[in-house]
């Protein structure tokens, strides 16, 4: 799938991703309408299904609010690529089925570039610049969680064994 890049810097905190005043719902779609409301108010309006967030170090630091990855998922973000992730955000994202990639793309990717993600092979192709970047795929267990759409659907699948339609 070809997707467009939204670029951020280091230490993007969860207060930025979803400010606390909107934490009166857990609904991903509703939260998505306030994603980055303070730091990038145009994000919620302009983000398209499948877009990718690219950031530097320590993405998702601060509050443990699961509302942050929910807001991104609700906005249609297909993946967050960052040099590193804050640990609670990392677990939350995997648990709710938001794919994460640990890779340093900040130098090579610009805002609005079109990229193509291959999670299994661990490759990001930058279609705008005609470049490729490899990344270490997530452990298989987490990939399976993501394929099922998170922890709850994964358990529902009987640990991924049940022959069901995947997400």
């Amino acid at each position, binding site marked *: 799938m070809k997707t467009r890049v939204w670029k951020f810097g280091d230490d993007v905190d969860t207060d930025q991703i979803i*400010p606390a005043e909107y*934490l*009166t719902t857990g609904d991903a779609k509703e939260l998505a309408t306030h994603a980055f409301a303070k730091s990038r108010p145009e994000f919620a309006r302009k983000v398209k299904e499948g877009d990718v967030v690219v950031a530097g170090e320590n993405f998702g*630091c601060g509050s443990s609010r*699961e509302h942050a990855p929910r807001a991104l998922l609700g906005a249609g973000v297909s993946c967050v690529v960052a040099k590193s992730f804050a640990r609670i955000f990392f677990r939350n994202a995997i648990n*709710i089925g938001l794919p994460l990639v640990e890779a340093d793309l900040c130098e090579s990717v610009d805002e609005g570039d079109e990229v193509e993600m291959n999670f299994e092979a661990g490759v990001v192709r930058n279609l705008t610049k005609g470049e490729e970047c490899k990344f270490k795929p997530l452990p298989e267990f987490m990939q399976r969680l993501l394929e099922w759409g998170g922890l*709850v659907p994964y*358990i529902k699948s009987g640990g991924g064994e049940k022959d069901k339609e995947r997400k």
Partner: protein
Amino acid sequence: MATIAEKILGKEVGEIVECEVDYVMVNDITGVPAFEVLEELFEVLEELAEGREAGGREAGGRETGGGETGGGETGGGETGVGIKREKVVVVQDHYVPSKDVASAEQAKALRDYARKYGIANYYEVGKEGSGICHQVMIEEGFAAPGRLIIGADSHTCSYGALGAFSTGVGSTEAAAAMATGRLWFKVPATQKFVVDGELARFVGGKDIILHILGEIGVSGSLYKSQEFYGTTIKNLCLSDRITISNMAVEAGAKAGIVPPDEKVFEFLQGRVRGDYKPVYADAVGDESDYEAVFEYDAAEIVPTVAKPFSPANTVPASELDVPVDQAYLGSCTNGRIEDFRVAAAILRGRKVSQEVRMIVVPASKRVFEQALDEGLIKIFLAAGAFVCGPTCGACLGGYLGVLASGEKCVSTTNRNFVGRMGHKDSEVYLANPAVVAASAVRGRITDPAEIAKMTKTKV
């Protein structure tokens, strides 16, 4: 040879271990999504349980850390699927008393869930034991040495000050632990922080952790456990240690642990639920267990302020001369009686500047009562401060002190991210209670030593 984190989790660094947790805490913001996921899980688990024999799961790396939750009784029906209700602690604290209709609906939903699942450890506005969730967990005897506690709030790491391994999780993980009593952990590497020497006047736990953050940065402890040692830490009161452990997460740490001592045991007497077993690192003199060792001289730590927009953006308070619109004393970081005493000593006989709104929010009902008994509330009121009951309130931009555009707040809280306490163009300066009180009086960010110098009155 192992660190405290490794011993509590029962495995070596880097290993994944599924552990029985002692408690799972949720609040009004994270609790409702957690119960929603829990109900979804119940449907799934019941379906699965029908075709399977109950129980028989292999134990993880640890036994429970005492307490009253070892039995693993469930509130379930015939299938054995149900909530581990004795492990669950529910605290209404972020947006209560409700600030608007949406937060009222949320608090109501949480209240209904707590009732539906028979949660005895439920803390309601104004009631005995109520307050900000982390202060409740500590005061009410849930937090204790050697325990493994998770909470759907990032500052759950606070209980490290009592020698627990405690860490923040999301709502989905909290739900999974509510249903199973267990959660998986990757055993983190440990960093050792040693602070030796005597602290100067007006310097406390807040300055120590801000000083450390200034040196290691907001990702300096990413995925790590921190352990704190040295004569300075040993001499700190428990409240100051809680401030340090509380902000471990601001460096990205999974836990921030202080080896428990007499001060902790004394605090827990007549308070702790069940029994507990302190856990210490092996061979304290041997540092090969630690990924890194950081050493600090207490004499070099001064009243410190973190400027916007990062808790690691630190400078000595004496180097700032920033006018402030608001001064905030409170939160899980610095809303305890010891903090109030420090601030009251400065505010006694003085007035908050006409240009400043000072807001005082005790971390719990107990702190409020004690502050009343000690006459501190009277001092705050006489100085021209606004005082209200415990809530997370304005710390996260909720209510009771939200900032307008361009406004600046000097605050004893823990985060100063963009828009944290209100408008995106407002600013938060993090500091200790003495700095906040002194700044409130002078109307500008002030090293408390300045106030002491400026007047003849003893501080």
